[in-house]
């Protein structure tokens, strides 16, 4: 993989915060999927995906986020995004996902929602 996609889930009240780093594409999206899947299997229902360290994200990454959002909602929870960089905000906007997935500027804001 291009950049090591370091992912570290941590608890914040009823939320699980997952910090993601690097570039998310067809190659690395499966790693993100596994980490979010493990968190959900481990009982997380509200997940805040911190994208601050993500330098690139394409439709493969969007697919993982949408799939995980679905699973969180099915469990009665939610998935939120934190601090996506400008190009990632743009792809979220083009695809209309910014209307489906809440986007917050900080982890605090996301987890106190």
């Amino acid at each position, binding site marked *: *993989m*291009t950049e090591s996609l370091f992912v570290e889930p941590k608890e914040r009240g009823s939320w699980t915060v997952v910090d993601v780093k690097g*570039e998310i*594409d*067809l*190659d690395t999206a499966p790693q993100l999927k596994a980490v979010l899947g493990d968190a959900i299997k481990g009982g997380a229902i509200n997940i805040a995906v911190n994208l601050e360290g993500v330098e*690139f994200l*394409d*439709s*493969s990454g*969007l*697919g993982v986020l*949408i*799939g995980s959002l679905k699973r969180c909602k099915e469990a009665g929870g939610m998935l939120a995004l934190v601090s996506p960089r*400008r*190009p990632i905000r*743009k*792809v979220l906007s*083009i*695809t209309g996902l910014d209307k489906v997935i809440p986007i917050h500027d900080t982890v605090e804001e996301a987890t106190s929602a």
Partner: protein
Amino acid sequence: MTGGQNGGPPRFKLTTPLEPPYIATARMFAASLARQFDLPEDTIEDLKLAMSEACARAVATGGKDGRLDVAAERRGDRLVFEVVQGSGSLAEGGEVATDSMEAALHLELIGALFDDAESVAGPDGAQVIRFSAA
């Protein structure tokens, strides 16, 4: 897109195995050329995304001869990119499972980013996704 010493301006080519890890290589190829042509940073980000989508789609459609083939060329003030696609249907998807929403998104995103994006038959019959930036 023909060219080279005997047929127009010199062109750029990148070939890698048709495998997901090298999509990142194709992105950096696009970004590197775009930087040499002094395109703005926002456009470079758009090119990286379009390239990534075109390559993911190449992988999903089985590509051609096991290779990921990317070409670029300057035409006037535009930098034109081409990514060779496979003839496989997206639903088949080869070894790489591609969720149908993602598959539809590839072309949609490229088109949203670049007005002139098109999917055309290349000289040797292979399907090619083409887009350009200035």
